[in-house]
């Protein structure tokens, strides 16, 4: 089976070129354009860890139907440099188009890997820039115009959004950009070959928002009433700091870019002592520096939320790529034993939901809650129905913020393990929130009995947590030929692949662990009990979720799919894997292939 042609319901566009030329920004203009026009979009930006040069790409999926992830296939490739063609030609679907500047590379010099089915759309990007008297960066806008022109899609929407985008600049700028876009649009119309079908703006579609995972997390935290966000930048968590900083003053959040991650989490603990909802987010390296304080939060029973957005390690690793290899680290980080909750959002909607729920859990349990994501969640945009703000609740657990108390005991022993929390500032609330083992008041204690009582009290909260945390989520038919287990962002390409497989009549179901700790032993047990064939998908080499299942459920996994090259799982890969498991490997001829599925055309 060879790569399928673009088909009616979906178009996939890739823009490729060196870093620092506004590829991502341009791509997102396009994404917003189609989102506003009622389409579902999903974009994936891939870039190396440097500021200029290198090879960046922006891949945009536009579809009428619901989509869950990126795909490898590309229908329209915008090559802002010659290298891009060679690197991505294999992904092009039958009849796919390449938009390029003959000034960069002559059509005859394009490396098409022998493909003769492709449509070449030469656009003199640089020349047009000069024609409209613009600057080099405008090549992007021209290319966007060309994409629309080639697709025979009206250019007005683009013109509009450019005008609003440059509203704050002198009108001349906006008009130059619009002129550039239109010029590109018209140039593309002259292309020798036409785009095989037409997209048109859709009407009466429900309104949507386009956001990335970090924005979703930030919105969840904001909705939850976060009062302080403290962080030190680290890819891919960095933009949470930017979003928070942007809304700090208008939303009343103290946002602190700290000297290091040690300060960030210890500041969170101090703010939590004062009763403020607080969060810090980082990646593995910064989380390593937070480990000791994570234990401090555990023993001092401090309500904090920690975002751990992972990337490939060890150490500095591959900063801008993705991996799921910190699962076990998150579960076992810090000396000693204390309760913790670890939530793993599978997509952007869940990122919002689990973020605000994390703050409730932290307050209800008075212990650290970790939100475990990765670069695939942080860096990429989805069109989603606006997060359900109405569903957000604030439950601060047992908390007294003002007034007066008598004979207060911060660490009073209770059946749930959670003690009434009275803030400093309350008259009579003398207490020591302590990093040492301590007695009910908070004073350091070393006698065997107090130690056991307090340690047991704290661990009791892990049992209490089981009734509060989100349960695993189940997708697909109750009985299926293949039953998939996974956590976190792998959910996205898996749901996409399941859609394709379902269309082929291959029955697959999936259990996604939204809470990875405390581990949902019961649910996994009954799911595996019922499964015919199990497939575990996780982005690490050592099988960390697999190990957890073995430990907690004493069960063996049937099949496994792991990935550690820093790239996210693609639905194509998962689709083929399922077929292989079922004994009929579908040999997709190229990475870029997508199946010709029922109703695909």
């Amino acid at each position: 089976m060879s790569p399928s042609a673009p088909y009616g319901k979906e178009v996939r566009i890739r823009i490729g070129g060196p870093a620092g030329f506004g590829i991502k920004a341009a791509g997102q203009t396009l994404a917003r354009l189609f989102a506003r026009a009622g389409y579902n979009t999903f974009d994936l930006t891939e870039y190396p860890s440097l500021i200029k040069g290198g090879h960046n790409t922006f891949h945009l999926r536009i579809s009428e139907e619901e989509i869950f992830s990126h795909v490898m296939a590309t229908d329209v490739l915008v090559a802002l440099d010659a290298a891009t063609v060679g690197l991505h030609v294999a992904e092009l679907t039958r009849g796919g188009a390449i938009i390029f500047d003959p000034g960069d590379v002559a059509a005859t010099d394009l490396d098409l890997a022998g493909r003769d089915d492709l449509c070449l759309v030469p656009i003199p990007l640089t020349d047009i820039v000069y024609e409209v008297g613009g600057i080099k960066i405008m090549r992007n806008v021209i290319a966007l115009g060309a994409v629309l022109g080639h697709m025979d899609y009206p250019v007005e929407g683009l013109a509009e959004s450019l005008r609003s985008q440059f509203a704050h600049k002198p009108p001349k700028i906006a008009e130059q950009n619009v002129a550039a876009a239109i010029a590109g649009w018209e140039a593309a119309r002259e292309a020798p070959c036409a785009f095989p079908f037409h997209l048109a703006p859709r009407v009466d579609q429900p309104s949507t928002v386009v956001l990335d995972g970090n924005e979703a997390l930030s919105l969840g935290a904001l909705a939850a009433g976060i009062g302080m966000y403290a962080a030190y930048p680290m890819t891919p968590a960095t933009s949470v700091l930017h979003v928070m900083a942007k809304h700090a003053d208008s939303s009343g959040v103290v946002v602190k870019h700290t000297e290091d991650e040690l300060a960030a989490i210890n500041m969170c603990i101090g703010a939590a002592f004062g009763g403020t909802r607080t969060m810090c987010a980082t990646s593995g390296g910064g989380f390593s520096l937070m480990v000791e304080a994570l234990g401090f939060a555990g023993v001092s029973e401090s309500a904090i939320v920690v975002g751990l957005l992972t990337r490939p390690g060890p150490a500095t690793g591959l900063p801008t790529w993705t991996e799921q290899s910190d699962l076990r680290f998150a579960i076992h980080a810090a000396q000693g034993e204390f309760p913790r909750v670890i939530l793993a959002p599978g997509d952007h909607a869940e990122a919002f939901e689990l973020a605000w729920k994390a703050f409730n859990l932290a307050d209800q349990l008075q212990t650290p809650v970790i939100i475990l994501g990765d670069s695939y969640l942080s860096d990429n945009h989805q069109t989603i129905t606006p997060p359900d703000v109405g569903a957000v609740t604030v439950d601060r657990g047992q908390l007294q913020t003002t007034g007066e108390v008598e004979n207060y005991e911060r660490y009073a022993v209770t059946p749930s393990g959670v003690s009434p929390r009275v803030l400093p500032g309350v008259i009579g609330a003398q207490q020591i929130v302590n990093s040492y083992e301590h007695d009910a008041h908070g004073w350091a204690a070393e006698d065997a009995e107090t130690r056991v009582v307090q340690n047991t009290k704290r661990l009791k909260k892990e049992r209490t947590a089981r009734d509060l945390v989100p349960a695993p989520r189940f997708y697909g038919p109750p009985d299926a030929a293949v039953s998939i287990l996974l956590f976190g962002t792998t959910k996205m390409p898996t749901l996409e692949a399941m859609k394709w497989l379902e269309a082929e009549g291959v029955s697959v179901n999936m259990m996604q662990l939204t809470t990875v700790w405390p581990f949902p032993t019961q649910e996994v047990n009954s799911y595996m009990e019922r499964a015919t064939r199990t497939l575990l998908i996780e982005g690490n080499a050592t099988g960390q979720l697999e190990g957890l299942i073995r430990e907690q459920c004493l069960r063996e996994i049937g099949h496994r799919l792991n990935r550690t090259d820093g790239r996210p799982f693609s639905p194509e890969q998962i689709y083929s894997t399922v077929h292989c498991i079922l004994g009929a490997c579908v040999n997709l001829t190229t990475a870029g292939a997508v199946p010709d599925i029922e109703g695909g055309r």
Partner: protein
Amino acid sequence: MPEVKEFVSAIKPTWCPGCGNFGMWEALKRALAELGWEKHEFSVVWGIGCHGNGADFLDVQGMHALHGRSLPPAAALRLTRPDLQVVVEMGDGDGYGLGMGHFIHTVRRNSDITVIAHNNQIYGLTVGQASPTTDHLMPTVSTPGGVLEQPVNPIGLALAEGATFVARGFAGDIPHLTELYVRALSHKGFSLVDVFQPCVTWNKHNTFSWFRERVYKLEAEGWDTSDRVKAFELSLSGFHDLTCAADECRAPLGVYFEEQGVPTYEDGVPAAQVPGWSHASEPRDISSILAKMS
């Protein structure tokens, strides 16, 4: 308004008899009483060390933080609770060793907190290793050949980063120390009181009598507290090696430098004007932010 004795907790101090921490404990209780601070109007954050054991002996609404990490939680508490004054008690190993980075960055932030350093020039609780302020060439169990480093100069460092109140006290002079505390606690902005706190068990060199031979009061000499550069020069006289005689190694006590009216970090943060918990009484309305994203 609590009296001095009301700041005494139910736990009897476990410091070694004669420890300099007793004097610092007493001076702080007196300063708090003199200022008339109610127990719900301030919080104290301790680091880990003998100094930190003091967390059990003062009856307050406080926090016993990690070793070397007393400043970040203290600064955050101040930043999110404008209704609370915040005092930090840190050790020399704790605050100037492990915690050095936080120290420098908190100073340059001019966080409105008061930092009291229990500077006994030794690691007390871990039985007598060299601390960052141990005198040059002094032998300790971790440096039998003598410390090769220059001692940390906390006052010079603070001055280099724009500190607005820098003082030095001596645990052997409680009335004078109380005065310094009162001034530091009343100062708006970051205030440091580095206190010579003899460790009678492990530091046999910098003893009470060693200090008594060397300390003198800046006030008495009509010291000008407004000259940062002169204060820096004075801080260098804090560098002394084992051999230097009492008359050479003078140890100035008092306020080295003071600057009023410098905006604090808290002043610059709009969200820091109300208690952080007040933002979480109900879900925050994010509709305007969402609107920009569609």
